[in-house]
């Protein structure tokens, strides 16, 4: 299920490129690879500002994501507070994405193999 109007998606990533592994964590992810689905151009958003927080990493990560203009997120798990933040600004979330590269995750998303989540995973 891919929504046609979605143009920018973010994938939590351990590194800056499509060949880096997906980071299954959201709040404490290393960073986000933001992909323009039309051109397949990528930009990398470092998430270090979230990783150093004692609390509220998920909320900070959601802020970083919104600043980067992402409309959807592919990741492993999103906690309840980050979920509330993403939901409030209408960022759609796919959870359970792990053990693959960012490029593979994007390809599966484009092929309609992922479903959007309707609740946080923990």
């Amino acid at each position, binding site marked *: 299920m891919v929504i046609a109007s979605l143009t920018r998606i973010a994938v939590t990533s351990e590194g800056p490129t499509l060949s880096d592994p997906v980071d299954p964590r959201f709040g404490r992810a290393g960073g986000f690879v933001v992909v323009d689905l039309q051109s397949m151009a990528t930009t990398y958003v470092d998430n270090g500002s979230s990783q150093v927080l004692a*609390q*509220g990493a998920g*909320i900070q990560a*959601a*802020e970083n994501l919104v600043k980067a203009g992402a409309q959807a997120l592919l990741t492993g798990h999103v906690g309840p507070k980050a979920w*509330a933040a993403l939901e409030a*600004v209408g960022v759609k979330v796919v959870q359970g994405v792990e053990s693959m590269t960012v490029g593979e995750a994007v390809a599966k998303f484009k092929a309609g193999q992922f479903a959007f989540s309707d609740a946080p995973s923990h």
Partner: protein
Amino acid sequence: MIIAVASGKGGTGKTTVTAALASVWKRPVLAVDLDVEEPNLHLFLRPESVNTEPVYLEIPVVDKTLCQRCGACAELCQFKAISLLGTTLLTFPEMCHGCGGCMRICPNGAIQKGQRELGAVESGLSQGRIPCLTGRLRIGEAMSPPLMNQVRQRMRTKAQQEELDILIDAPPGVSCPAMTAVQDADVILLVTEPTPFGLHDFRLAIRAFQPLGKPMGVVINRAGLGDDRVQTFCRENGLPVLTEIPFRRDIAQHYACGGVLTLLDAGLKASFEELAESLERMAQGEVPHA
């Protein structure tokens, strides 16, 4: 005079020592349980006529009609209790530490005071002569220092008004709750045990508390168990071992029934009386031999 009974490791005997000290303390003393996540001093001191007062933290409530989405509050908050996502302002009341900064920095007066229940402060009287204060954290509340600070405030006021010394039963560990509990102390009394875990966590506690520059004394509980490495460590680091509680079955039995150690036998009573005197001398600036 304020004595905080602390430890790195949990279950070393902080509460046992606090209750025993309270029972032999010569001057009027207030017994305070600052282990608000699982208070247990009351099991030994059994205060009566307990008054329970719910306590709250001031949290932000944003009036969205006044808010201009400037983001000053979200930028100030170090705990992500307020977040500005695009033009959407969200609050996460459970993340708030209650500093009040957001309310002060808001240029539009859009942030009002709301409340989050932290838990309760219980006050009572033990044996008709020892006033007791206990903090009890609300189940689901993630942070204990805000509640501990409210207990500390009441503790200081009461002790000042009624001219009481204070004995604090601190929480275990070396993170924020433990550091909060020893802030007011004139002397920190560390309770440890001669086991590898005991020594490991004792060293952490010493490292955490040493920068506070307060005099520290040591009680070794379950003495005779394990080895003598705790004693050696104390000697090498100039930490006076003020008393040792022997590793004895009858002590464990007495404790398990909620008994105060000084009531078990005359020897224990005498050693706690000596401990109380040593603490008093340390509070007055005397440095005992390690």
